[in-house]
């Protein structure tokens, strides 16, 4: 939040020699016939933080890696002008690049993808940078590694140095990555989705760590799909789409008064409190939603307890879900959200406590007794691809839970596909050929097939781009309005939960620390943990009041018409 003002001029110019660290004009990168970066121009000045924002396939990662000569095997990189560290990078050969990698610019990749060698210790990974660039003599290396770990905010550096990625949490792995990227004291850090897949409080700490590096004068090129993350650290932002920059400028200007329709639609697609009841993507206004009704909960849990070995995954959770209602479940990884979903779905039996479905016992009964009720509770999971048999066609996947004669089955499948916005031709295709958003639509169609009363959504949009996420959330909202579905909506994303939920349950270490009306909980959190969660969420700047557009926040009617 300190970084919203342009800092290139605010920073003492004596800190670094004049001229940008990297500057490229008309960068073009192609793989074979496919040009994925199509004329990007960008520069990063010493001490500056520049953000590249875009959705998957926008070319943001390839652009960033090209700046280190790491566009990838088979990539053809061209540019009208390209300078790195004041030298002409167009004339670089591999050894020239190698000397700059790590020492002039450090690369921090997304941890969740396995960016640390799983077979090597943290110390070996960090020490490698020191040895390659001869930063410190061999004898001093171990001590320097510990200093770097400590500087990256790793507690107990001596213990962590000897551990391997599988022994470290996601947040610690990201810190180790940052420690190794800065080990040789680079003047530029290129961070590619450095906080993606991290919990919100961990994300806040990682962003703070990067901000600290910046405060010490290191420039930062931040690549992210998350506009709010960018808003909190970047001086300037470039919005990429299909390999081209559609808009750029100071972060505050771009995010609060976007000029390009694509930027506007990206911003509009971000779910938040302000978007409740409105569409996130383009389309007709949503159908009016029936108020959740009925005093009899369709799904109820009382005092659920479930342990995995010595660890208590869920410890005494109770809730009631009324027909047509959405109950959001938020919490960080390991808080027991998914175990709760499995208990509720009758896939795990609780050690104590009870689940009832339609007022009838659902937990602790035999599967034979459960089976007739199974159609009325269905699951939409985070990664649909893993939940599909890869050899089945979409048609077969959607037809599987339907108890219909063969002749009627096909018509019903096409019906369901149409309902989730997929063309009939999809039925003959395999899930692998579909995009992430299409796959999630297939998963929703499959879940709708048995006409459930309850939909359990476990992180249904976490793996999707923001615009696709918007479409899927809109689809779920429509279906809920149409069919009076009750939803148990599990997510780590507070914005998403706030957008979709009527009530919310906050989980920590297997326990429900707070429950209540969603606005009440987010605006006036009572539990310290909820307060910490809410405080850690990075925020978009409010739309600029000086703009002719009347709306003070990203309001819906205006936004659903954009692009």
């Amino acid at each position, binding site marked *: 939040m300190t970084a919203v003002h342009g800092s290139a001029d605010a920073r003492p110019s004596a800190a670094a020699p004049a001229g940008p660290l990297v500057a490229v004009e008309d960068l073009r990168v192609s793989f074979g016939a496919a040009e994925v970066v199509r004329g990007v121009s960008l520069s990063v000045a010493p001490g500056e933080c520049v953000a590249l924002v875009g959705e998957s396939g926008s070319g943001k990662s390839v652009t960033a890696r090209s700046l280190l000569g790491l566009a990838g095997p088979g990539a053809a990189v061209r540019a009208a002008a390209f300078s790195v560290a004041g030298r002409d990078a167009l004339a670089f050969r591999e050894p020239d690049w190698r000397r700059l*990698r*790590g020492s002039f610019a450090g*690369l921090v990749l997304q941890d969740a993808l396995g960016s640390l*060698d799983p077979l090597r210790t943290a110390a070996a990974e960090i020490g490698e940078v020191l040895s*390659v660039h001869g930063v410190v003599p061999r004898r001093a290396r171990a001590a320097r590694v510990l200093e770097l770990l400590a500087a990256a905010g790793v507690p107990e550096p001596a213990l962590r140095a000897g551990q391997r990625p599988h022994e470290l949490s996601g947040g610690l792995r990201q810190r180790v990555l940052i420690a*190794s990227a800065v080990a040789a004291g680079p003047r530029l850090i290129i961070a590619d989705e450095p906080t993606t897949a991290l919990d919100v409080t961990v994300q806040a700490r990682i962003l703070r760590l990067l901000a600290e590096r910046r405060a010490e004068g290191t420039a930062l090129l931040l690549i992210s799909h998350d506009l709010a993350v960018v808003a909190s650290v970047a001086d300037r932002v470039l919005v990429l789409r299909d390999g081209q920059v559609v808009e750029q400028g100071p972060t505050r200007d771009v995010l609060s008064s976007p000029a390009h329709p694509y930027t506007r639609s990206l911003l509009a697609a971000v779910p938040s409190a302000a978007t409740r009841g409105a569409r996130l993507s383009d389309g007709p206004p949503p159908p009016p939603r029936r108020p959740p009704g009925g005093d009899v909960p369709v799904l109820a849990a009382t005092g659920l307890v479930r342990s995995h070995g*010595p660890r208590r995954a869920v410890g005494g959770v109770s809730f009631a879900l009324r027909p047509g209602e959405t109950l959001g479940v938020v919490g960080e990884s390991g808080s027991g959200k998914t175990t709760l979903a499995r208990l509720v779905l009758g896939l795990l039996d609780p050690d104590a406590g009870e689940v009832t479905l339609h007022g009838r016992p659902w937990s602790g009964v035999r599967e034979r007794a459960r089976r007739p009720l199974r159609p009325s509770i269905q699951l939409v999971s985070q990664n649909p691809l893993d939940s599909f048999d890869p050899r089945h066609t979409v048609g077969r996947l959607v037809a599987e839970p339907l108890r219909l004669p063969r002749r009627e089955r096909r018509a019903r499948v096409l019906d369901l596909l149409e309902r989730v916005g997929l063309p009939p031709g999809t039925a003959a295709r395999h899930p692998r050929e579909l995009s992430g958003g299409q796959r999630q639509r297939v998963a929703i169609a499959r879940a709708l097939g048995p006409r459930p009363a309850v939909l359990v959504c476990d992180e249904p949009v976490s793996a999707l781009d923001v615009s696709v996420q918007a479409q899927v959330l809109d689809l779920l909202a429509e279906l809920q309005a149409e069919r009076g579905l009750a939803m148990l909506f599990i997510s780590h994303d507070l914005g998403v939960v706030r957008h979709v939920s009527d009530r919310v349950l906050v989980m920590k270490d297997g326990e429900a620390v707070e429950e209540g009306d969603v606005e009440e909980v987010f605006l006036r959190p009572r539990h310290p943990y909820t307060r910490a969660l809410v405080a850690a969420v990075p925020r978009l700047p409010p739309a600029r009041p000086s703009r002719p557009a009347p709306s003070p926040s990203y309001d819906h009617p205006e936004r659903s018409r954009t692009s």
Partner: protein
Amino acid sequence: MTGAGLAAAPGRAAVLPAWARFAARRTLAAAAVLWAAATTAYVALLLAPGDTVDILVGDGPDTPGIRAGIVAEWGLDRPQVVQYLSYLWRLLHGDLGRSYQLQRGVADVLAGQVGPTAQLTLAAAGVGVTLACVIATATAGRGRLARGAASAAELASVSVPPFLIGIVLLAVFSFTLGWFPVSGAEGARALVLPALALGLPIAGVLGQVLRGGLERALEQPFAVTARARGLTERALVTRHALRHALLPAVTLAGWFTGTLLGGAVITEALFGRPGLGQVAMRAVTGRDMPVVMAVVLLSAVVYVTVSTLLDLAYRVIDPRTRG
């Protein structure tokens, strides 16, 4: 699985460290396999058609004195259970029995042959592993030409049977060029051609697996991180990727123990080398049952030892597999 999960929990209060418990478990399992092998050999002897004494005599000289010796040694005049237990008891004490054809103790027959076979198989394994590593690291992720050539050579070495490789090697290097002796086991020079004949197919398979593993590892995100630190491709391969590629290769090593033992029989015959292969051939064709049983047991020991070592190697290479 739950055991592994528990062991991974911090603050475990076990009496033994994890590796010692692992070693103890493995040793017990190895003993069980050896017991099963010994019992199978014994059951095969019982099930063979005809009188047990006739079978043990085989094609050897048959006199009442020898027959009485067999009955005494195997306890054939005593109950079945006692026979079986005394058989195991003898094995436990390292007594492999007596070959009535050769009129010598089986241990004595084998003792002189283990050395040459060990030499041959170890040399072949060395040739195979070294060639595979060199070719794979040199060609992984390189141009199409280098990979194509290596790939073709590997395919050829896998598809051509070892005896044919042996014959070609003999024809070229012994008969034509005269660089290496045609047969025998004297000196290191006599070892070169047999080791190549036996090791080349292993180099072929292992090379392909290693290169595949290297190329997969080089595509992982951590390879990008490593390149971004300024590592050369060579350093990336040797410091990072090779270890990942070794995992499937180690699994294969279990398989090629069998190939080596089986291949040794043919290779020894072709190159006129002494060794276990020759002994086993003679014993099988001459129906010298005590020797056959001892060879079976010996290969079981080799297999069990190798697979135990490989499991330990797995834990060293990939710490994630430590329970």
